[in-house]
Structures are given as structure tokens and as C-alpha cells.
């Protein structure tokens, strides 16, 4: 039985130059409703999921994910089409919806619980568990107004309440992207626990690792339309392959057009990952090859190249240089192999310098490459960002030394 059905749903917003109608265009638009500009947030979206499905909804900013969630949770109505949702729905579009700053933590548990659709008795019977889940700090300040809470405490209390909802269908929007790593661990763990039950979950996230591990189906939205819908593995594969950011090759036919200076010019630069046969995007396990060819007009010069790899934060992760050799003028080719299981997932960029006599920089090709490496994990229960810039899989020897009974 289909528990959620969406049939050619469309959502249109009317745009006016400024949102509140002035008397002039207010009156005009009042009598003549067709003159308004419209914006299609969603166009002809159709899909359906079964009971127990976990649906991940992915897409770039502005793809219509949030609008779709708002329609599914009945906060707003579609302009076109129909939705059928069969069962009790709880939607978590933010943590701590309706918390009142003047009320105490205790009062807010009842308030927020009621807003999210729990009855008074349900909240009462789970009150201790909620406080327990929120942590000892909350328990200590249960009767303090939440305006005195730190933002971390506020989020923890809010999530603790939502974690104890017991709906048939749970709609979640990125609420897991808040809080510190510890808390994210806890909340994702709770999601996993809920996912293991026969619950239906609709989950919007930019955290593709979480989608990969929590969801069996994925909906990929693009500009308000369904781009792909189906099994998570296949959808994520095509999504990543299309969206991985890269500036991977340059090639110049003649010296005059090429970047560089009067003696050094770029001929060809290419970065080439060895992808897995069944994954169409670049993951942490793939090795890659960088080729860098340049023109040199110097006669019998001692040259080498030096390569800097930077993280997106601007920090240099490593720098390697070639040996210094004597070259005649002409084209000089270099090739570097970087192994897989070395760089962690993230965005990187690479600069290449051509150096004379080991110390004199002839030219620095800055940000020659930009690329993104996607996360790759199997059989994991931790979906947060894997820490660090490098991710080697050095073997760790672990044994039991003694046994005690």
C-alpha cells in the first residue's frame, strides 16, 4: 500500500516587485491578477513511496526541497496536483518549534510536544526519557526559562522532544545539521534507530553519506522538477557524477594563447581519477594522476616543478617537488600519481610552480585544478564528517591481551 502519493504537484508563487502591495500596484493587482510575475517552485512532481520506505530528498539550493516538505506536512497547499498521505505525520522542519523564551524547559517540553502533535499523556509518560536524552545539563536547569539556555542546550532539548515523537510518517529537514559533533552523532544514531523500525521517513539533507546509509529511496529535485527517483545507490551515483565540482583539464595549442609569462607557458594540465567500475564519481578510495606539460624558452636551465595541494579552507595539505634536472627549451612533461585512500573527502585545489635552480620561482600557476572528493563508507553507523585532511587506511593491529571473567 502506498503511504505517500504525490501526483503532478506544482507550486507557484506570485512575485511582485516588493512583497507587500503598495496602494498603486496593490490596487492594480487586486483588479487584474494576471499581471503578476510567477515563480514555479515545483513543477509536475510525482512519486509515491510504500510503508516503511525511507526517502532521501536531495538537490541543490533552490531545487524545491523545502517547498515539497512544506506541502507534504500540510503547512502550505500545492497550486496544482494532489497529495495523499495515509497516517499520522510529524514534521520536523526545525528544532524546538514554538519554544517560548520566557517559559521553563519543563513547560516548553509540554508546549513543543503538543505543537508537534503529542497528547498531554504521551508527553507525561515520556517526560523522563526526554530529559534523560537531552542530557544532565538540561535536567539541572529544567525549571529555568529557556532564554537563559545556551544555544547548544536549546537544540539538545528541542531534538530530545522530537526524538520521542511516535508518528507513522516522519518528515525531517536538515535538523541534524545543527549542534556539535557529539550531538550530531547522537541524533543520527537516533535516526538510524527510527529507520530500523517500520516507520516511513522523508528526509531532506545535504549530507549524502547520511542519505546513503539511512534511505532506501532517493528523490533528486532540480529546478523544481523531479530529475531522478528510485533506489538510493543509483540516484546518488548519477547525482554525484553530475554535481561533483571540478576544473580538471586545460590544454593550449600555441604558446601565445597560453597562460604564463615570457619564458614559461602552460601547455597541458590534466587531473584524472581512476574511478571504480560501478561508481561514477570520485571517492576517497580512488587514486588519481596529474599531468602537467609546459613550454620553457630557457636554454640549458636547471628546472623542477613544485606542487601544492590546498584544502578549501586555504590550508596547504602537502607540497611535493620533482628532482632538479637540466632541460633545453621546448615542451617539458611531468606526471604525478597520487594513491587512493589518501586524501579525505572534501574540496581541494592545486597550484603548480616552475622553479629554476631549486629556489627561483619562474611562474606559479595558481589554482590550476579544483576538485571534490566524495565520501565513501561501507557498513558504518557514523555519518558525520570524517575528521582530518587525510584518510589513510593504515592497518591497526588490535588483539585481546588478557581475558577476565
Amino acid at each position, binding site marked *: 500500500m502506498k503511504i505517500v502519493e504525490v501526483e503532478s504537484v506544482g507550486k507557484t508563487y506570485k512575485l511582485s516587485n516588493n512583497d507587500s502591495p503598495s496602494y498603486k500596484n496593490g490596487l492594480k493587482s487586486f483588479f487584474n491578477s494576471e499581471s503578476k510575475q510567477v515563480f514555479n517552485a515545483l513543477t509536475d512532481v510525482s512519486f509515491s513511496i510504500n510503508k516503511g520506505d525511507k526517502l532521501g530528498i536531495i538537490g541543490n539550493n533552490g531545487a524545491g526541497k523545502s517547498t515539497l516538505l512544506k506541502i507534504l506536512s500540510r503547512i502550505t497547499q500545492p497550486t496544482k496536483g494532489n497529495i495523499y498521505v495515509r497516517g499520522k505525520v510529524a514534521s520536523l522542519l526545525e528544532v524546538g518549534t514554538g519554544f517560548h523564551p520566557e517559559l521553563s524547559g519543563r513547560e516548553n517540553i509540554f*508546549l513543543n510536544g503538543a505543537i508537534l502533535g503529542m497528547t*498531554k499523556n504521551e508527553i507525561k509518560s515520556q517526560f523522563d526519557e526526554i530529559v534523560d536524552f537531552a542530557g544532565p545539563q538540561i535536567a539541572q536547569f529544567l525549571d529555568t526559562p529557556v532564554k537563559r539556555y545556551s544555544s547548544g542546550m536549546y537544540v539538545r532539548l528541542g531534538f530530545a522532544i522530537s526524538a520521542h515523537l511516535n508518528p507513522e510518517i516522519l518528515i525531517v529537514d536538515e535538523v541534524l545539521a545543527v549542534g556539535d559533533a557529539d550531538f550530531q552523532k547522537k541524533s543520527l544514531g537516533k535516526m538510524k534507530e527510527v529507520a530500523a523500525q517500520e516507520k516511513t521517513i522523508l528526509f531532506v539533507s545535504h549530507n549524502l553519506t547520511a542519505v546513503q546509509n539511512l534511505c532506501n529511496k532517493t528523490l533528486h529535485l532540480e529546478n523544481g522538477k523531479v530529475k531522478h527517483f528510485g533506489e538510493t545507490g543509483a540516484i546518488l551515483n548519477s547525482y554525484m557524477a553530475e554535481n561533483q565540482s571540478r576544473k580538471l583539464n586545460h590544454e593550449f595549442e600555441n604558446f601565445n594563447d597560453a597562460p604564463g609569462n615570457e619564458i614559461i607557458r602552460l601547455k597541458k594540465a590534466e587531473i584524472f581519477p581512476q574511478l571504480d567500475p560501478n561508481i561514477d564519481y570520485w571517492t576517497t578510495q580512488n587514486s588519481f594522476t596529474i599531468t602537467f606539460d609546459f613550454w620553457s624558452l630557457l636554454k640549458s636551465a636547471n628546472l623542477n616543478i613544485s606542487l601544492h595541494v590546498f584544502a578549501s579552507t586555504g590550508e596547504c595539505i602537502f607540497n611535493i617537488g620533482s628532482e632538479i634536472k637540466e632541460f633545453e627549451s621546448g615542451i617539458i612533461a611531468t606526471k604525478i600519481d597520487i594513491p587512493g585512500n589518501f586524501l579525505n573527502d572534501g574540496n581541494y585545489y592545486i597550484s603548480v610552480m616552475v622553479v629554476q635552480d631549486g629556489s627561483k620561482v619562474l611562474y606559479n600557476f595558481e589554482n590550476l585544478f579544483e576538485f571534490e572528493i566524495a565520501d565513501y563508507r561501507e557498513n558504518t553507523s557514523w555519518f558525520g564528517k570524517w575528521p582530518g585532511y587525510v584518510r589513510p587506511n593504515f592497518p591497526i593491529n588490535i588483539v585481546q591481551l588478557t581475558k577476565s571473567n
Partner: protein
Amino acid sequence: MIKSIKEVIAEKDLLFILAKRDITVRYKQTVLGILWAVIRPVATMFVFIFAFKQIPALSSTNKYPFQLILFSGILVWNYFANSFQAVSNSLLVNSNLISKVYFPRLIIAFSSIAVSLLDLLIGLVVYMILCIYFQYPITFNILYFPLVIIVISFFSIGLGLILGSFSIKYRDILQIIPIVVQYGFFVSPVVFTIDSMLNKSWFIYYLILNPIVGLIEISRYVLLEGYKSINLLQFLITLTSAFLCFIIGITIFNKRENSFVDHL
């Protein structure tokens, strides 16, 4: 319409907890706290006692203590004005809820009258103390007062819903609401009685257009022994136009409810 009322009743837990929230928060961080519910109507009464002392003709028209006439009028008017304003503003005040979670939106409107209701009850206690002070009898008629309050509530919710529903898209309405309250005070028999108007030909239209006239008068009838109020037919007219306003309010609200989020 029945359906939307039923939805509200099904979620009564939420209704009560929102009402409780408004009441709890109302007098937080005030020194005098709930005493403000006493101070405001009493202060209004003193202002008008002072004003009318200068116009002997008005203050001597009745055989009842003029203070009681004033206070009962102010009591009912304040309840209407406060609950009407609370309902009309409730959607914008709770916009964070409306845009983040679904529940029958009417609950917000209904729960927002709680604070005014509490103020009214406190005012009623003050009224009874005044009666004792003026040695004026309190009769069993006062037991009908809750029924009158229910009718007033329907009217203020109805009017509040009409203006509140439009205020989401047209914020101009927010400018109109205080004007309605300010002028309404003077075109309703809050600080005067309708004795002199009863025989006027336009009185019937006055009743239809302004149900609060009949509602104040009928309140005085149940609160003040022997008060000469409107007749049964006039009361029924008041009742009809109050309920009509409620029905119109709910209908407009239901129609516009779905687009609230898009204009918040």
C-alpha cells in the same frame, strides 16, 4: 464549518497549552503581575467618573450607582476589545508556528482569547466587590453572565478572524484594528446607556450593525438588578448578528487559511 470546529476540539490539548502559554507569559517580569488586570478597568472607570462629574446631566439619569454602570460597560467592552485584538493579531504573532508545523490554524485564534478571559474574570470579582461597597444586590441573574460571555467571544472571534485573515496579506489591516477599538468605544454604550435611543427609528440598525451594543446592554441586565435593557426581539437581533459575524469569520478564515504561509 462544523468540520473545522471539530478539528479544534480534537486538538484540545494543544488549545489549552497555547492558552496556558499566553497566560503564563502575560505578566512575566512585571512587579504587579496579575494586579494589572484590576488596575486597567478601575483606572478607566475613575477617568470617566471624573469626566462625568463635570456633566451632571449624564451622571444622574439612572437610579443605579453610576460607577456600576460604568464598570460593567468597561468590563464587557475591555473583554471584547482585548479578545478581538488578540484574535486578529494571533496569526502574525504565531507566524513561527504556522510556517513550521501543521495543526488546525483555528486553534491559534481560539486560544488567543484566554488572556482576555482571565482578565474578565478578575474584573468580575472587582465588580462584585464594588457591588458590595455600593450595597447593591447581586442576584442569581449573574449566573447567565457566562452565556453572554460565550456570545461575546463568538462575536470577537468572528470579527477577529475576518480582519486577521486579511491582515496576513494586507498589513494595512493592522493599522485599522486599533482604530476599530478606539472609535468602537465611543459608538458603543460603554460609558453611557441607551435609554434615550430606545425609541429612535435608527436604533434597530444600530443594534444590527454593532452587536456589542446589545451585548453590553444584556450584560448589564444580568449584572444589575432591575436594569431596563433591550427587549427579547432586540436581543435576538443582536444574537443573530453576532453569530453571523462568527460564521462569516470562520468561512473567510477557512478560505484563506491555505495561503497564509505564502504571505508570512
